[in-house]
């Protein structure tokens, strides 16, 4: 099974969960996992396919979350429109950061540093500006009606984030099969060579950055609607920059399912560790940090990529003896 069919099958399997499970704890876990998978898919587009490692995707997540909340609470805008506004604002921030960084020719370490710095600037500004509620943050008023993007049942929230993740999988798949995606991957593999072949590297990276920022901003918008609270440490905090990067790297950067697989693996491990030792602060992140080093060292293609490699090798081994036999018969 491949391509759109595989996406449909995976989404259908996730969508069937509410038929069998009614526990809010499980839904909470799945919602947060899918939320991180969505943020990670955003990172995957510029980081995985484009090879530009951002250390500051919190800038987009936080902008999505804050703009959704501010439009609703300060300007009385409908939540769904606020949601779209949040995504647009995130994309705009992506265009600004990407435009500045790529035009200045910043690559690898320098790009990581400048994205990190932008996220920090936004975090500090959000913690002092009155419109963001400064140090207090913003509470979104409880209003459990579908037209305000709030639902009585956790299962509905779960289906909404699942739909967003499904859309992000489709975006990644479309990208992968498009000419634009081929340019992007060419830039990742060898920027100078791609430019020599006529690829406008700056424009391609900028385009990918905008899509990437929009997807991660969508995760931020959903966060605001789900938890109904945003503050600077949550929205622009380093945790989200790290998790958005961690999930595709662990799942498989530059693959359609990498972020989803990575998010499931990382969150399951984190929850497992908490069950095992009790909820001690730092433990889950400690495991994530170790996992990051281990994956880079031993499985640089991530879980999805490593699995594909293993399958390919097994297939080759299956083919090889048959060829041997044919040669023996001929000889």
């Amino acid at each position: 099974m491949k391509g759109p069919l595989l996406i449909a099958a995976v989404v259908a399997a996730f969508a069937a969960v509410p038929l069998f499970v009614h526990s809010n704890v499980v839904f909470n876990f799945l919602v947060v996992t899918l939320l991180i998978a969505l943020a990670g898919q955003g990172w995957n587009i510029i980081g995985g396919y484009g090879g530009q490692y951002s250390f500051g995707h919190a800038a987009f997540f936080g902008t999505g979350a804050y703009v959704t909340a501010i439009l609703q609470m300060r300007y009385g805008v409908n939540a769904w429109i606020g949601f779209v506004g949040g995504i647009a604002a995130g994309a705009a921030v992506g265009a600004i950061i990407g435009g500045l960084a790529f035009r200045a020719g910043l690559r690898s370490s320098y790009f990581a540093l400048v994205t990190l710095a932008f996220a920090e600037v936004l975090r500090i500004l959000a913690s002092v500006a009155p419109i963001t509620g400064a140090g207090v943050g913003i509470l979104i008023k409880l209003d459990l009606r579908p037209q305000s993007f709030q639902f009585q049942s956790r299962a509905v929230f779960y289906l909404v984030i699942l739909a967003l993740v499904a859309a992000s999988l489709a975006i990644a798949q479309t990208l992968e099969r498009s000419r634009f995606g081929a340019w992007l991957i060419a830039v990742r593999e060898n920027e100078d060579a791609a430019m020599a072949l006529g690829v406008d590297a700056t424009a391609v990276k900028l385009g990918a950055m905008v899509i990437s920022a929009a997807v991660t901003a969508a995760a931020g918008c959903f966060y605001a609607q789900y938890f109904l609270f945003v503050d600077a440490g949550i929205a622009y905090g380093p945790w989200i920059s790290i998790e958005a990067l961690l999930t595709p790297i662990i799942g498989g950067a530059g693959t359609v399912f990498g972020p989803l697989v990575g998010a499931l693996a990382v969150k399951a491990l984190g929850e497992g560790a908490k069950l095992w030792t009790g909820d001690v602060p730092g433990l889950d992140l400690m495991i994530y940090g170790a996992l990051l080093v281990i994956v880079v060292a031993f499985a640089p293609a991530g879980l999805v990529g490593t699995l594909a490699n293993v399958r390919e090798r097994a297939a080759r081994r299956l083919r090889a003896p048959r060829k041997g036999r044919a040669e023996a018969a001929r000889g």
Partner: protein
Amino acid sequence: MLSPLILGIAVLNGLLTGAVYALVALGLTLIYGVLHIINFAHGALLSAALFAAFFAHQKLGLDPYAAALLLAPAFFAVGYALQRFIIGPAARGDERNMLLVTLGLAVLIENALLYAFRADTRTVDLPYSFKTLDLGFVFLAVPRLISFAAVFAVALALWAIMALTDTGKAIRAVAREKLGAELAGIDVAHVYAMTFGLGTACVAIAACLLVPTYYVNPGAGNAFVLIAFTVVVLGGMGSVPGALIGGLIIGVVESLGGFLLGESLGQVSIFLIFIVVLLLRPRGLFGASA
């Protein structure tokens, strides 16, 4: 209100703070200059060193300045081992991998500290913590004056190591021409690890200088590391004099910015310098062309 005297005091205080920034940045720039990696674990290592200095005082009764003599070699060994056995083999020379590995180590170390010691903030009480020197127009904190002098002593020692020892010569050779150095029989993996060790030792000394006046918690180092990145970028990646001067400049900017704009926005002014320098002149004031 904005008399030159008050501004002068802000500048003096900024210079004293800036010296410690310079020392943290010195380790970072040394590692960048030779290994060409940005060590994202630098801040976490600083937090770890702060805890080490704290416990050296608490459990062994060691004065922080004396503890530096113990912690600098210990952290040199830690840095050496990290590069030789973890970062080097895991990253296999790929720049993106190095970013990820040092980031992973940063997350691991910081949260291991959080796990072990919780988020409580600790301070060391020393008889001289609040001693001041009266210059007639301003009182300067004695521990900060000591650290100011110590930073320049460390920079001098570092210069001596680089200029006068065989190891220093090997480090400079690898920084200039890695392949050539390898062909001349220099063990590059060893030199990389030595450099990382030296950079980490700088962090340990910085921690010992900070502990008398600063607080200790698992995130304490992070406050410095973004500033240290700024210093390194401003001074020029890999440039030692750049790190010293950049550190002093950033210290003064922060002090004046905090004085004129309030503490949070003073921080923003540093990051804005950082972004502007990165975008307009990524090789910094003293760096070789990027």
